[in-house]
């Protein structure tokens, strides 16, 4: 009798502890979001979005160049990563049983686990050293390498979810393999793949470490891909560790912009997948 009661008490205690673990993890999330919004919102004005940084010690200035730079560098990364990721993903899904397919899957998972700072070192050797200059292009290479495994794996998993009957139908009508894949299978999986690309974009847009010594930073407005360029993340970093209160204020504002971008992408992706799900259920 006593033993049974103890077992029930232990069981209830564990249930409560597991619930407490969830709450414990959500506290920092709430705290981070609260501070980013409350500290950042006051500095989000027109100047922030339209001006370039003020010289050290002077008040004012903004992050216009950094916002454009972030979009540019992430865009360059996407230009590299999307075609390669898509085609590699198609191969892995179409020839799923082959040795090459399982090797590429393994390579993608490995690449996904490589620390971003190490990818920065790699991009430095690949795209900075040979040209003797830091550049937006080198930053794009680093971010592209980070996006690649994400896009490849999403593409593969989503293509595998397309019913085989669709592919077989196309083949039965006399389509070649390429035709069946590009005209029937990929379009069927496209909304999901686009969502995956959006998430990959959002994830690397928040990266700082691989840009520190590839894209470096730039005080001025620049869209030249062969020159160093300012990005939102690196700018937030250099302002955060600076001694000026006005720069700290702007670092919070920059963080708020970053978090807004990331949250918007996550919410859009979530909304899109929920919609896809409903569509599918309806069909």
């Amino acid at each position, binding site marked *: 009798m006593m033993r049974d009661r103890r077992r029930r008490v232990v069981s209830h205690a564990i249930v409560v502890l597991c619930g407490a673990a969830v709450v414990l993890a959500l506290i920092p999330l709430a705290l981070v979001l609260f501070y980013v919004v409350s500290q950042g919102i006051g500095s989000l004005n027109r100047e922030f979005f339209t001006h370039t940084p003020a010289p050290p010690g002077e008040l004012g200035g903004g992050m216009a160049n950094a916002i454009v730079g972030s979009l540019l560098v992430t865009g360059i990364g996407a230009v590299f990563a999307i075609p390669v990721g898509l085609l590699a993903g198609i191969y892995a899904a179409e020839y799923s049983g082959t040795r090459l397919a399982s090797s590429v899957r393994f390579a993608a998972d490995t690449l996904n686990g490589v620390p971003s700072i190490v990818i920065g070192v790699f991009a430095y050797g690949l795209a900075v050293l040979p040209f003797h200059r830091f550049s937006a292009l080198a930053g794009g290479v680093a971010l592209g390498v980070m996006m690649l495994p994400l896009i490849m794996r999403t593409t593969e998993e989503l293509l595998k979810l397309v019913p085989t009957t669709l592919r077989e139908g196309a083949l039965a009508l006399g389509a*070649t393999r390429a035709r069946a894949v590009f005209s029937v299978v990929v379009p069927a999986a496209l909304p999901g793949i686009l969502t995956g690309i959006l998430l990959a974009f959002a994830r690397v847009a928040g990266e700082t470490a691989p840009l520190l010594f590839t894209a470096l930073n730039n005080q001025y407005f620049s869209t030249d891909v062969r020159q160093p360029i300012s990005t939102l993340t690196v700018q937030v970093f250099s302002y955060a560790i600076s001694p000026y209160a006005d720069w700290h204020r702007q670092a919070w504002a920059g963080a708020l912009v970053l978090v807004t971008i990331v949250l918007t992408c996550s919410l859009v992706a979530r909304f899109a997948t929920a919609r896809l799900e409903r569509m599918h259920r309806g069909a």
Partner: protein
Amino acid sequence: MKRWRARPDELLFRAGTGVFALLLIVLVAGIGVELYRQSRLSIHEFGWKFWQTDVWDPVSGEFGARPFIWGTLYSSVLALVLAAPIAIGIAIFLSELSPLWLRRPLVFLTELLAAIPSIVYGLWGIFVLVPWIRSLEVATPPWMKTIPLFTGPPIGVGMLSAAIILAIMVIPFTSSVAREVLKAVPQAQREGAYALGATRWEAIRMALFYARTGIIGAVMLGFGRALGETMAVTMVIGNTPRISLSLFAPQYTMAAVLANEFAEAGDDLYLHALVEIGFVLFIITLIVNIGSRVFIWSLGRQPRSARVADAAAATAA
């Protein structure tokens, strides 16, 4: 069948997509080769001594990287000690206990924890967490200060702040893999336990035991993440190359020294020494990640099918 396979357009398609698949594999190998190539000066100059000495003084050409490897391992282990129980608790709650209507929003929120950029955690760490830790350190009773874990002046930045930030960042990775692993445990396992009169916790314990290799894999995956985490750690760990057990002491990690010094490394030897740190970090994370995958795979192919089912639930199914 054979003739159909031999069709040239089929071959073209296979080769055309295969090249890009191959490119990914070449890329991973290329990272290893490139890192070795850029660090060979330092490897030849110092050999193993590089990892056995403690003085890091680029100006006088002394490169001892032991404090960095210590800082990386110590901070990651501490982070896992904090994060693993919480992450496993979350995984249990979400896969076994949570009411259905609460599950999806909670999964979304815990995954949001992984979506917040590292730099934002770092910023929050510098201006919010570090002052809190400092007042905690100031309030530490004197008798505790004699324990090696709590020695040193209360400055806030240091190992404790780094470990806490890392723990927060690692929790979503570990919990989501642990959740998948638990999902792969056959329902009959739990039903059998209940049929024998088990309490809820006893049934969960059975499931945990069944999935133990996968859980270890999930924790290792979190460890791999912690080892390579850069920005947030750089901003709160204090960036002082020294080996100390104290949680209050400012220390340094491999990723942090790369972030701080790489862009300014003047001479070749200095640069190669830094790349060597990156090279070793690459190898360590590679081993940890592959190890974690082996653990997760050894549960059979179930976790994979669970992941596919997950993708199905999230996208189209």
